[in-house]
């Protein structure tokens, strides 16, 4: 056999020896790897890290979302815009207690009677981290860049779309002229960048601001390091005009898996974790040194109907079920939804039962239906409404559409959101009892059927800003696509003249109380149409270590959330705990001992093994 003489023959052929030695080599390398592993169990780095912690107080925050860009002109994801809040001062900020616009880079602002000219006084005590003073010229340059360079308008172009001219007559005076009145002028969420740094950037649309550190900024923190999907490192800005943060360093550390992040919190490797599931919150509750913050969120979770997709030019498209154009049917459907069960079973108590369109967290705009108006859970009444609307049950108990076929609604759901699926199951049960079928259409990407109007109902949800203008605007007729081929800003093709009139009125109303009253009227109108129904306001569930963070400001101040605030309050206000940094010490020293013991045992084992082998092979060597 050829194989035999290949290996069994002479030892002269080079190929035989290495192969003959392979198992020994193998054992050796495996042992080396094991030893390396064992040696590494000795946590060599906690020691320097602890020493580090003794001098510097580090606040470590677990994050999951990847940074899309560190350029304020390009970034749109929450993690990136939150970092920009910390790094660049905006003209205004939001009061942590009531979301009111308060001074940021601008100390005060005023407008002319026609609301078309806005003058901002820029503070003189803000400096860039490279030592230069921040002036109105920086702000003017930022806005002008966004108005003239398409690339720079990527992230926040909508804020300046209505700007006519922006000038800086003096270092402390910024003047913005508008084409028509704009309600968000005290809520321009635009990071102001240093002109002397950014004017050197060639193509803004290709510049991600993530190569040279530290990044010149003027916020409470200075960005000093970034590695994609590993960490974002920020240092306290000692010269920040509002006062320096209490922690020396803020580290956003990546945890792509929620359970791993929770494990890191339990161990004390991170100080803060957000976006907890009910199960994770339950596991953390009651643990020493961990505080679970179950705060009212800024999102609403709703069911939206397809009232018939259409464009502004009148063309209708999509294939929404005709019965949903009947208000009675829509009301009946929502009356058959038991919100309490959904809150208890699906959200496991981590949500507030839905009512008006804007979450109660934004108190000035929060609205609740009156008792008469309310579409409370009442399956019998729901069945009656359907009968009245002419959708009666057949012999098999199924309600028939106008086409004579049993009604089955396609409900568009996000495959990535377990809540959608769970609520969908309840809908199948509840609406099934009404005689209406439900087929859940769960997809990773719901945008295509959504924009094409090829659905009957859909799970909907928006994160609401302190200024509700945007979430209100997406239900106006003007938000419908211009033609069938275009994409509009519309959420569900809602177009209601009465709602639109109210929208125009609130837009022109600059008295906050009066505007809030109109907004509530809009919510009432939206509720009555039954086009969409808010089921719940999911809570923001987060947790932090009390042995690392002594106190931290929530927003709203009482019972608010910490991550993803509209200002920089949480991280800026966080106070390090006395014992901060000690938590891993115990584990560290035990780790050293165990590591050394393991290493010695493995090394001895390997030595013995190799010794035995060597002796044996020496005897047998041919």
């Amino acid at each position, binding site marked *: *056999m*050829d*194989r*035999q003489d*290949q*290996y*069994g023959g002479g030892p002269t052929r080079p190929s*035989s020896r290495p*192969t003959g030695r*392979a198992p020994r080599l*193998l*054992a050796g*390398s*495996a042992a080396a*790897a094991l030893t390396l592993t064992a040696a*590494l*169990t000795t*946590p*060599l*780095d906690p020691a320097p*890290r602890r020493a580090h912690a003794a001098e510097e107080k580090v606040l470590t925050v677990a994050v999951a979302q*990847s940074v*899309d*860009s560190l350029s304020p002109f390009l970034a*749109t994801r929450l993690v990136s815009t939150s970092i920009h809040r910390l790094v660049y001062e905006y003209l205004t900020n939001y009061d942590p207690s009531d979301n009111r616009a308060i001074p940021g880079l601008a100390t005060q602002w005023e407008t002319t009677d026609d609301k078309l000219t806005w003058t901002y006084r820029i503070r003189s005590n803000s400096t860039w981290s490279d030592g230069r003073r921040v002036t109105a010229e920086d702000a003017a340059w930022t806005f002008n860049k966004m108005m003239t360079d*398409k690339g720079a*308008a990527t992230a926040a172009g*909508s804020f300046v779309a209505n700007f006519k001219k922006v000038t800086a007559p003096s270092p402390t005076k910024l003047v913005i002229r508008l084409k028509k009145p704009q309600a968000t002028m005290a809520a321009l969420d635009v990071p102001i960048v240093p002109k002397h740094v950014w004017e050197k950037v060639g193509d803004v*649309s*290709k510049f*991600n601001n993530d190569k040279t550190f530290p990044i010149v900024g003027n916020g409470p923190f200075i960005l000093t390091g970034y*590695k*994609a*999907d*590993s*960490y974002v*490192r920020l240092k306290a800005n000692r010269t920040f005009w509002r006062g320096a943060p209490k922690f020396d360093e803020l580290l956003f550390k990546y*945890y*792509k*898996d929620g*359970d*791993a*992040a929770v*494990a*890191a919190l*339990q161990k004390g490797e991170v100080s803060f974790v957000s976006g907890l599931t009910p199960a994770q919150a339950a596991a953390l509750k009651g643990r020493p040194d961990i505080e679970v913050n179950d705060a009212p969120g800024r999102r609403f979770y709703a069911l939206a109907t397809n009232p018939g997709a259409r464009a502004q030019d009148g063309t209708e498209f999509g294939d929404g079920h005709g019965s949903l154009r009947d208000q009675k049917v829509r009301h009946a459907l929502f009356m058959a939804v038991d919100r309490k069960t959904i809150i208890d079973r699906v959200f496991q108590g981590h949500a507030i039962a839905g009512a008006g369109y804007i979450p109660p967290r934004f108190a000035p705009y929060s609205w609740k239906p009156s008792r008469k108006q309310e579409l409370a859970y009442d399956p019998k009444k729901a069945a009656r409404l359907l009968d009245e609307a002419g959708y009666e049950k057949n012999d098999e108990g199924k309600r028939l559409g106008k086409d004579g076929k049993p009604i089955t609604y396609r409900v568009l759901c996000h495959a990535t959101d377990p809540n959608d699926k769970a609520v969908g199951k309840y809908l199948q049960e509840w609406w099934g009892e009404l005689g209406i079928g439900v087929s859940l259409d769960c*997809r*990773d*990407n719901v*945008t295509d059927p959504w*924009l094409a109007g090829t659905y009957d109902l859909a799970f909907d949800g928006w994160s609401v800003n302190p200024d509700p203008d945007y979430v209100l605007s997406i239900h106006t007729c003007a938000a419908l696509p211009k033609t069938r081929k275009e*994409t*509009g*800003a519309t959420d569900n093709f809602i177009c209601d003249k009465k709602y639109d009139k109210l929208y125009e009125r609130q837009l022109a109303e600059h008295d906050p109380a009066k505007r809030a009253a109109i907004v509530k009227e809009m919510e009432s109108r939206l509720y009555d149409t039954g086009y969409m129904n808010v089921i719940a306001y999911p809570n923001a569930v987060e947790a932090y270590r009390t042995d690392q963070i002594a106190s931290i400001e929530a927003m709203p101040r009482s019972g608010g959330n910490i991550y993803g605030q509209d200002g920089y309050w949480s991280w800026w206000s966080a106070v390090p705990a006395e014992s901060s940094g000690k938590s891993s010490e115990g*584990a560290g020293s*035990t780790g050293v001992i*165990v590591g050394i013991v393991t290493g010695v045992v493995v090394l001895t084992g390997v030595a013995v093994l190799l010794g035995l082998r060597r002796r044996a*092979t020496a*005897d*047998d060597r041919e």
Partner: protein
Amino acid sequence: MAAEATPALAEDSGGPRASGPRATGPRATGRRAGRVGSGYPRYVAGKVGGAVVSLLAVLVTSFFLFRLIPGDPVKFMTGGRQVSAEQLAAYRQEFGLDLPLWKQFTNYCGQALTGGLGTSYQFRAPVIDKITEALPNTLLLTGTAFVLYTLLGVWLGARAAWRGGGPGDRFNTGLALTLYSIPSFWLGLLLIIVFAVGMGPIPGLFPTGGMESGGQEGFAYAVDVAHHLVLPVVTLVAVEYGQTLLVTRSALLDEMGGDYLTTARAKGLRDDLVRRRHAVPNAMLPTVTLIFVNLGRTVAGVILVETVFSWPGLGGLFYQALSVPDLPLVQGLFFVFAAAVIVMNTLADLVYPLLDPRVGR
């Protein structure tokens, strides 16, 4: 060339090869081993040519394949934001999505020929940069794991087969099969809870995730990364070594009845040596196949393990790219993954004649 010896790498899933190069035949006898047949250059040219054709096919496929994914990247990226129709159009124009498909394809080909892979939609950075940023991380993780699980698998597989049916064999094979069947993310989470957080008397020895603590340099950085590497590598090795073990074991079992082993024993060689010098090398071909397949896979990363351990590698990047879909990034990654497998398969093809002269003759 001997038909039965043609390496069929892509479809090798680890099962024993019923007909392999170890088949004896009159043609094989009497030929000097260790020398490659005279047709080797032609064989190499054929294999390399085939690989180039495959690469081109991948290039074309990746363009059309990912355009079948439902979803409009522009709509996805601007979803939930206030965007005017003009801005949407500007996006389409910037990404070249407003062009007819054939034009997009020719642009893509032109770009690929000049070595570019385009610009990522979501990160607005060259795809090459995003890949080269994450590739070393992935290679560090999967490469380390690959070396360890291959060595462990071959070693344990050979031992198991040699004492086939014995308690050692049953234990090793059973353990390997059990670990092989465990979902990697679950095992990873268990390891985190037990060895990173600590449980009972076991202290938390390792970091809970990530690749580095950040802020270190030089040697301290290397140690820090190695420290972070332990748990994910252990997870991968535990889940993966079983395959190599089983393939090596079954290949060696097939070899066990060979006359040449009896001859070796008759020469008075110790059993251990008979195994190491005679049996194992002859049984290596299926394992070599598997090794190269695994080597090709190392580049593709491991999405689940990377996610559980928050390892910033290509697997996670691919997932992010797919969810948009970030077409240039998806295409680039797909090409790199496919190219790695093709190159490794070709290398395996080229190595075969060196291991078994009947191949490629």
